[in-house]
């Protein structure tokens, strides 16, 4: 075996919270990276993966401290180096590709200057050679017109271009280790696929070792030979990527993989109940025990070690019982049955006919100028002549990249924004453009759930207050009745009634979204608009929310309009799918038609960009060998 390029040994990192308690973020992580090797680190929010990524560079966030352990790069302990040696190493032999390049590029410096800075610091090129090297690098990350782009400021570039610039900056010094921290967050699927292609290509060409940290297993599978699953600040399982995905051993890994929806499967994935732990002391028992269906006394009292297990690959597993669990099969995914067969209905619940919309207002100066010169506004239409219908109990999904107009359509249906042209009918009657002109009965019947529950729940209200608002408004219930109904609603979204007196800040992300769902269902609606409601959540939580949505739909026959950028979520949830591009519908059909050949060309492009894990094997226990090629057009 090669001598490792990086050796992390028993690393423990923590920070002190407001009351001075030590919060353990990384608890005893050991990991080796060989030259040219690509390792993925996967985990959900709060598992310590970003802290681990930064530790590879000998960097700790302000306030964090190293409690124990070492990080050796090329034999040198990074935490023992002085500032000077560290600055030479960082951006030199070890380079980072940051999460959200848009914020990681200095806004007041031109692109070229920022790349040149890295070159000036870590290479011996002459100033003249530096500027031609900048252009070469921009070309290497496949940016068009590199000379022009070098003169631009970061905000003038699109998200994908910014990410490419960050990559160019990272490879400028020809590092031997690249650290990727969620390198594609916030990018559209097609852009994401292109960036991953570029990274995989660079890794092959340059032979650079790569650490890729992400919550997205699909991405890790695309980039990494080995993968470490991080849970509660320690490695739960580690092994060769393909083998691990095919046959996960740790219960957490199994749960995590089962929670991921796939574009091949209409089933609703299974979530993991509970939420990740926060450690105020070093270690008591297995970190996953509180959420594990198979946990026993041993698990709660004795911390399992990271054991070696050899079968198809060399696997490390931190579980007392993994061997005996192999025989047990996890519960199968849920199959969704449409509550009302579409064929039995005649008139649709909601119908949009040729709706066109445009965003924004012109400023006073602009309006006067136009009046004087008799110009029409030249702002482009956000939505153009869109028409579709939704039946009772049906789920229609709107998919498309950012700017495709899907959110704008939802705003029109909810009465928040008036269409410029076209009409909307609800339950056979025309729907007024503005919420103010709609009768109370119609307002009640159409509810909306937003993407980010942090923003959609008033931080000053208790859960009881939040749920009481629609009850008071639509049903004129008194205080006591509101409380009873609110408690019943919480039970319907599987939350304990003790939550009634809590404030949103005291809830986890998934719990908040459940409250938001309960608020929408408090109105006993016929149609619920779901705007990316799971995209801010971890996959294990997302699966549980999807399950809840399906259950609620079955109970009440509610129709959904779902906006999602994740095509696998759409596949799991929707009966029919409308694919949008540039404010127009380019395809609308049943979910099986849309996801099967022959494809509409744009749909095919979207589907091809999805980083997909393989379909669940028949018994749901393991995974077939994945095929990770990004398919050319069929």
């Amino acid at each position, binding site marked *: 075996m090669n001598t490792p390029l990086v050796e992390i040994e028993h690393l423990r990192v923590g920070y002190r919270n407001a009351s001075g308690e030590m919060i353990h973020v990384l608890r005893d992580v050991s990991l080796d990276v060989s030259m040219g090797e690509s390792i993925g680190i996967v985990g959900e929010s709060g598992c310590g993966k970003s802290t681990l990524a930064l530790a590879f560079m000998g960097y700790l966030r302000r306030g964090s401290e190293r409690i124990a352990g070492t990080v050796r790069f090329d034999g040198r302990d990074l935490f023992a180096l002085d500032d000077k040696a560290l600055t030479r190493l960082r951006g030199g032999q070890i380079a980072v590709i940051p999460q959200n390049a848009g914020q990681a590029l200095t806004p007041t*410096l031109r692109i070229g200057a920022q790349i040149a800075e890295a070159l000036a610091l870590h290479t011996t090129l002459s100033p003249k050679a530096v500027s031609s090297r900048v252009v070469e690098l921009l070309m290497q990350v496949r940016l068009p017109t590199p000379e022009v782009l070098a003169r631009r400021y970061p905000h*003038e570039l699109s998200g994908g271009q910014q990410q490419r610039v960050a990559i160019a900056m990272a490879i400028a010094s020809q590092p031997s280790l690249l650290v990727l921290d969620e390198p594609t967050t916030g990018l559209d699927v097609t852009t994401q696929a292109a960036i991953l292609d570029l990274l995989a290509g660079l890794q092959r060409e340059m032979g650079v070792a790569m650490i890729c940290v992400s919550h997205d297993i699909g991405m890790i599978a695309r980039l990494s030979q080995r993968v470490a699953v991080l849970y509660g600040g320690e490695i739960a399982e580690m092994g060769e990527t393909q083998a691990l995905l095919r046959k996960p051993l740790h219960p957490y890994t199994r749960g995590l993989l089962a929670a991921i929806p796939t574009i091949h499967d209409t089933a609703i994935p299974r979530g993991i109940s509970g939420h990740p732990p926060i450690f105020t002391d070093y270690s008591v028992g297995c970190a996953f025990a509180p959420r594990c269906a198979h946990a026993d006394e041993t698990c709660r009292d004795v911390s399992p070690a990271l054991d070696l297990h050899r079968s198809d690959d060399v696997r490390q597993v931190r579980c007392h019982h993994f061997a005996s669990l192999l025989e047990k099969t996890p519960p199968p995914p849920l199959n969704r049955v449409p509550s009302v067969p579409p064929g039995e209905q005649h008139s649709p619940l909601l119908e949009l006919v040729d709706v066109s919309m445009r965003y924004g207002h012109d400023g006073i100066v602009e309006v006067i100028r136009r009046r004087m010169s008799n110009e029409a506004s030249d702002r482009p239409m956000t939505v153009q002549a869109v028409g579709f219908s939704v039946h009772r109990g049906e789920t229609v999904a709107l998919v498309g990249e950012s700017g495709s107009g899907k959110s704008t359509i939802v705003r029109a249906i909810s009465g928040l924004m008036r269409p410029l042209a076209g009409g909307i009918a609800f339950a056979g009657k025309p729907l007024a453009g503005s919420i103010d002109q709609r009768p109370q009965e119609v307002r009640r019947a159409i509810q909306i759930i937003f993407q980010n529950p942090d923003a959609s729940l008033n931080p000053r209200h208790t859960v009881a207050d939040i749920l009481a608002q629609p009850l008071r408004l639509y049903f004129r219930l008194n205080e006591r009745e509101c409380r009873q109904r609110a408690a019943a609603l919480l039970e319907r979204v599987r939350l304990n009634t003790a939550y009634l007196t809590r404030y949103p800040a005291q809830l986890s992300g998934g719990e908040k979204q459940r409250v938001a769902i309960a608020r929408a269902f408090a109105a006993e609606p016929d149609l619920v608009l779901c705007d990316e409601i799971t995209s801010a959540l971890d996959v294990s939580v997302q699966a549980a929310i999807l399950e809840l949505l399906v259950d609620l739909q079955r109970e009440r026959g509610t129709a959904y309009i779902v906006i999602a950028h994740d095509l696998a979520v759409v596949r799991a949830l929707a009966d029919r799918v409308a694919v949008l591009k540039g404010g127009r519908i380019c395809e609308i059909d049943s979910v099986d038609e849309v996801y099967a050949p022959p494809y509409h060309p744009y749909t095919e492009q979207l589907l091809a960009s999805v980083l997909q894990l393989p379909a669940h094997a028949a018994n749901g226990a393991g995974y077939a060998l994945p095929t990770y090629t990004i398919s050319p057009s069929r």
Partner: protein
Amino acid sequence: MPRPYGSGPGEHMLKLALQRVILAVFTLAMVAVVVFATTELLPGDVCTAFLGRDARDVERLERCREERGLNRPAVERFGEWAGGLLSGDLGTSVIRDRPIADVIGSRLRNTFVLGIAAAVVGIPLAVGLGVLIAIKRDTALDVTISSTALFAMTLPDFVTATVLVFIFSFVLGWFPAVTLINVNAPIAELLPNIILPIMVLTFVMVAHIMRLVRTSTIEVLASDYVQMARLKGVPFRQIVWRHVLPNAMLPAINIVALTLGWLLGGTTIIESIFNYPGIGTLLLNAISDRDLPLVQSLALLMALIYIGLNLIADLLTLALNPRLRTLRA
């Protein structure tokens, strides 16, 4: 990359700048209306003030009003006044019986000398200290300077002035307590006499700017791009100069403009404590004399300085912040 509005970045910037200028002119026009209306609404006018006790003589009062055209409708007189302003004619001070431009002229210069001197000392000091304590956040140095700043900010300026005069003039005897100088004294003669007022002004203004610079520097230091620069291996000094300062200074431009507006608009209290012949003391005199035309002109002048400086700050921010200057992708 196609540009949405079919215009280049230069044109975009020009449009934004023009918009700011138009708004400033509009605001100034509103100030003129408000100033005129207020003086108009208050009981008494130029003639009652001019005649003093003689105003009880109704006939003389009427004659005076007739002579000065005060019986015409207010709108008409406003038009005349505003027209005069536009052509550079500020009118005549009734009480002082001199053109207002003459009365204000050298006093405005004096105020500017004092204000600019304080700004030249104070602004770099404030920015430097602000950045320094942001970098040394939560150390003894930061706590000491920050709490001193809190005191300097909260004390009334006449208290600060009184205390500093006591220390430097009476205890140490370094500087005179009052500036005994002629209104038209040449600048060279002016400066040595106003060291103490400059110190007082500097002391009062440094705190405000420094606190803002500290906050915005801390914010920038915590940004992703500064972390990125560290991970890129940029030495700390270079991070501060290239990555932190240009971004941290942007929000400071506005408060610097506000401070300058305060300094150049006549620091009434400090001028009066030191008996300094600037527009601040002139304003006090004009008010006690009920010299309404002079008060109107001074109010407008001070508003002009304030609006002008804010406009410059806006344009400067526009020029220095690439995010405003150029279009988004």
